[in-house]
């Protein structure tokens, strides 16, 4: 009897079924682990490759402002523009050679010396001399950026096991580097230039300053346009519109626009805003308009769902007290739906902040060195800057790209955290 029962159990195959159950559960866990694994790899990769950009190698140097070099023919009074064109890097080279006891007749050493510091030293010294020409002939202390290659070597990013001729930094430069570091003349400090400078072909002075301002302009435009238009559309569809053909068409349109690939919006911007209305290329105004159109569906959908979440009893009560339809919507329903509206807006703006493809088409991928002073000036944005740097092969630009990505991700994290906080803190639950 017992025997036969056991037999029947074996026929049902319970063990096999339980094994299948475990396997199935394992697949689910594995899938989640794969997803989280890639998230961790991505974040670790970004941070580990990019954190070093927030420090920059600098060189503190006493530079003798030699009159013979700035003004070799003694004609400064006749030609004041000499102060602008003078060979300032030569002064730095000489100062460096003196400090390191380098023989100035050795050509290879000279080449290494010139490659040791950033050519941005020219502007730095020039500005100080032009501001106060009396310092010519004296010795002044300057803080000069090291060149991009020295910066990489000093941060330990250059593989020293590679033979010297295949390396960007010579052994001679490395010994100098160590010597200067021991004297504390070569040191790392916080990289403010990365946040302030615009585009540059020299990685050590290239920064995200222009991109940050461009992004800021665009976010402001998106906020100013998309929020009122989106909220107005949502209110109309949710509170006023009857089931007419017009309302149906709008609704279908919004759902479709939410799924249109972003690059199509770039084509729209190029054809309509730039070619038809004649707005300037590379201007943050055009970028802001394109991103507004992209963000609208997000804001409309979020606003509609939070309007829908306000219970009808609120509307009925207000109507019962004699409020008009418009008063009900603007004085009762909208304030109650506001947290949801703001959450949706922030999420929409975060999407717009990270968008790249449409901006490439309207010329936001531009080499802009000066700050834009208005939304119609040429400018670029953070993702566009990342795209441009991504096409530069140099090691120092790769570091800067990761750095810009860190900044972008921090902004997005702040925006999304704000959205989550708003939702948790202010959202009401009607029961």
């Amino acid at each position, binding site marked *: 009897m017992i025997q036969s029962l056991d037999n029947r159990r074996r026929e049902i195959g319970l063990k096999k*079924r*339980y094994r*299948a*159950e475990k*396997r*199935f*559960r394992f*697949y*689910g*866990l594995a*899938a*989640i682990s*794969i*997803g*989280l694994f*890639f*998230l961790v790899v*991505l974040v670790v*990769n*970004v941070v580990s490759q990019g954190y070093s950009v927030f420090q920059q190698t600098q060189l503190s140097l006493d530079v003798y402002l030699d009159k013979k070099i700035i003004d070799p023919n003694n004609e400064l009074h006749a030609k004041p523009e000499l102060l602008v064109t003078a060979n300032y890097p030569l002064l730095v080279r000489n100062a460096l050679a003196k400090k390191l006891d380098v023989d100035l007749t050795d050509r290879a050493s000279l080449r290494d010396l010139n490659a040791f510091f950033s050519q941005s030293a020219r502007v730095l010294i020039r500005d100080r001399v032009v501001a106060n020409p009396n310092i010519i002939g004296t010795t002044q202390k300057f803080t000069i950026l090291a060149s991009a290659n020295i910066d990489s070597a000093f941060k330990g990013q250059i593989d020293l096991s590679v033979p010297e001729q295949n390396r960007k930094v010579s052994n001679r430069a490395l010994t100098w580097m160590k010597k200067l570091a021991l004297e504390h003349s070569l040191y790392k400090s916080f990289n403010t230039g990365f946040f302030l400078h615009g585009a540059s072909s020299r990685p050590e002075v290239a920064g995200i300053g222009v991109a940050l301002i461009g992004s800021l302009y665009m976010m402001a435009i998106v906020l100013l346009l998309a929020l009122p*238009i989106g909220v107005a*559309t949502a209110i*109309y*569809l949710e509170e*006023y519109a009857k089931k007419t053909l017009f309302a149906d068409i*709008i609704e279908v*349109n*919004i*759902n479709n*626009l939410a*799924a*249109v*690939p*972003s*690059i*199509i*919006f770039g*084509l*729209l911007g190029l*054809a309509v805003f730039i*070619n038809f209305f004649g707005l300037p290329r590379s201007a943050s105004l055009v970028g802001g308009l394109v991103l507004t159109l992209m963000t609208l569906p997000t804001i*409309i959908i979020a606003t509609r769902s939070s309007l829908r979440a306000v219970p009808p009893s609120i509307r009925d009560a207000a109507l019962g007290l004699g409020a*008009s339809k*418009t008063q009900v919507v603007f004085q009762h329903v909208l304030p109650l739906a506001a947290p949801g509206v703001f959450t949706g807006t922030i999420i929409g703006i*975060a999407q717009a902040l*990270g*968008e*790249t*493809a449409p901006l*490439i*088409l309207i010329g936001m991928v531009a080499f802009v060195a000066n700050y834009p002073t208005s939304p119609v000036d040429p400018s670029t944005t953070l*993702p566009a800057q*990342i*795209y441009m740097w*991504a096409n530069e092969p140099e090691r120092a630009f*790769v570091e800067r*790209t990761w750095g810009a990505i860190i900044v*972008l*991700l921090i902004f*997005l994290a702040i925006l999304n955290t704000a959205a989550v906080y708003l939702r948790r803190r202010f959202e009401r639950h009607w029961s």
Partner: protein
Amino acid sequence: MSLSGIVLILIIISLLGFWLGKRRAQKIEAAGIKMHSRPYYYGWYVLLVTFIPAIVFLLLWQFGSTLYLEHVASAKIPSVTSKNLPVSHSLVMATIEDLLAHPNLLFSISEVDNYNKLRDIYTQHGFILPLQGADYMVKIAREWALKANWLGWCGAVLNLLIAFLCFGVTLLKIKPKERARNRVEVIIKIGLITASTIAILTTIGIVLSMLFQTISFFKVVPLETFFLGTVWDPRFSAAGSDSAVGQFGLLPLLAGTFYIALVAMIFAVPVGLFAAIYISEYASSRARAIIKPLLEVLAGIPTIVYGFFALITVGPFLRDLSIALAGGQGFIMAQSIFTAGLVMGIMLIPFVSSLSDDIITAVPRSLRDGSYGLGATRSETIKKVVVPAALPGIIGAILLTASRAIGETMIVVLAAGVAANLTINPFDAMTTITIKIVNQLTGDLEFNSPQTLVAFALGMTLFVLTLLMNIIALYIVRKYREQYE
């Protein structure tokens, strides 16, 4: 008078109108007469009626006068061009607009119109004018500038006149029986409707902007060579000649687009689906509250970051891996279908999982309980009851994700390569529609060349493709959805 100045004056008048209207209504109420609406409604009424007609007039006037001036100027050009430089009409217009950009310099020399002298002055101030120019352009530009100035003043005066007229009339209309609230509410409703038409206008704008360029592209390149051509080689030199036929072949791009999307979906669908099943069926509510947002972080990361990750990290890693496995050159290229597909797949995981999670959770409890009651294990319930019930929704979600994969740009631009191959080797480089749109539109190409126009034809193709997929997805969801309530 500048545009911003006029707008500022308008705003001041309108605010003044609000204050005066409100005060007038308050005074009448203070006298003991009952008003139809609350006083601030009268204020709003005056404000809106003052501001809206004036600002609409201002915009129309600006747009109209620019069109008129352009028309007048371009009507003057051809008669002179034939005698002078053989330059094209649009170039002359561009030169005139360059001259107009700095009106103070345009009138800096008082003598007769002299292009070369003006050109020197512009250059001194850092503005470059074209070398080829003629004196008549200066004449047209100066007439334009004078006329524009005159029209601008006319517009400003008329505009303020309208504003004051509306202002005065509405202010006088404030009487106890005037239904200010109803009028304000009508204006608000019109505003709401206007805002919601923007969604329609955007769609119309997308379609029209691409349609016109696409049509002019197909005037140069025949339809069948675009849709059936297998060679993509939009050389600039070949564009005008007969050999251009067959150079704009869509097929390699289409194949690349679908291939990369397929690789991405092969990776993302199982992972996303199983993750969704685990989250909705197995995970405790605490685990769910942690895992779900973490996975959704993957969807919030900008695509440019994924693209750079693929370019710098994943691509070289896979190439080195293949070298270590097979030696020699390695069988995976640094930019390949596989790299782009894999990274895009990572990005798509949360799309699949979030959408399917919602759908699986929507399957009613009673179906599961029935299945458990019959002795099924959890996995059997999921496989035989829950997933079949949720299948239409899941297929809809997969289609929506696929349409996203097809329209994705930044990952493929950085990770998939630019060579238009037709290959079945997933470790080779292939290119996509979106890459080519970006390639054709970056750089200094003349806007009317087929090299530029083809980007719009590609965009149209992409738009139609994604639209079709979205419509099919919606259709499947609606048609096969099980109604439980």
